[in-house]
């Protein structure tokens, strides 16, 4: 676990309801409605907290007949805190993490459920979004313009602008009417 993950974990745990959920799950695995009844919170509120706990890797879920059962992740919760504090990332790793965080922030703001809400006005942010779309293309494969348009249209209706800008940013290379991801893209 790196420091970023540790911060995420501590932030997630700094909430009374989530601590109470974990205390309940320490007794036994439970489903949302049972936790809701026990903690006197609504089921959507419990689901909200469970999602945060899941994202911080403190809770896991599994299907059990009609219910989704939640359990605590003992591996994470039993780690000595001193270990979490020791794990300092290298400078290179820190830069990489910062870049990754920035990319995530841009993607979270401009994408919703896999759709690009609008094309960012800032070039840097647009490039990040187009690189995200480029993940849907196979490296080394040739695509016709129609195929490219169809794939991009799954993300946003303005596939012409996006396709042209992908060439402009050097994500795609075009030879006659064939498109292919650039090697360094």
């Amino acid at each position, binding site marked *: 676990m790196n420091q970023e993950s540790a911060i995420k974990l501590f932030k997630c745990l700094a909430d*009374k*309801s989530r601590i109470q959920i974990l205390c309940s799950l320490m007794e036994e695995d439970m489903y949302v409605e049972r936790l809701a009844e026990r903690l006197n919170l609504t089921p*959507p*509120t419990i*689901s*909200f907290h*469970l*999602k945060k706990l899941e994202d911080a890797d403190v809770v896991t879920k599994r299907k059990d007949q009609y219910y989704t059962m939640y359990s605590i992740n003992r591996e994470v919760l039993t780690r000595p805190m001193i270990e979490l504090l020791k794990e300092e990332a290298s400078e290179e790793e820190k830069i990489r993490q910062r870049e990754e965080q920035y990319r995530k922030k841009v993607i979270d703001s401009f994408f919703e*459920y896999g759709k690009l809400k609008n094309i960012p006005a800032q070039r840097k942010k647009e490039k990040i979004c187009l690189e995200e779309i480029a993940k849907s293309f196979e490296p080394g494969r040739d695509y016709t313009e129609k195929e490219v348009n169809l794939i991009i249209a799954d993300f946003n209706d303005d596939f012409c602008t996006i396709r042209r800008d992908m060439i402009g940013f050097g994500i795609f290379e075009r030879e006659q009417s064939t498109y292919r991801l650039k090697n360094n893209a």
Partner: protein
Amino acid sequence: MPGLCEDSEREYTMKANEFLTYIDQSIAACAKKERALIEENRKDEANMERIKSNVYGIAKSLYQVTEELADKHGEEHRAMFVDKMEAVMVPWKKSLEAAKQHMDSEKECVELIKLSVAEEIVKVFQS
């Protein structure tokens, strides 16, 4: 019979004041709960109270705007307010469906809160 018109005007004003008092009291109650939840280190649930309070705020603004827009008080204003509230709920319902589809429980919870408060407001208004 000037008395009849005056009576209905008086009844309308009384109901309007009652409704606005309910909205203001609800906003105050949300603010109180929000403070208590922050004290208890339940920040996310405190944010949910803020969301509820915002919905009451939206309803209050819509009520006041439609009151000015409606040619005459009474039925026209009532219908216009309910229409506007329902229009506000349309994107929230869409967003709720999308959240359910993508198993986004955080968003689902927020949209459910917004919709339940808006529905409660319309119900109180129509009662």
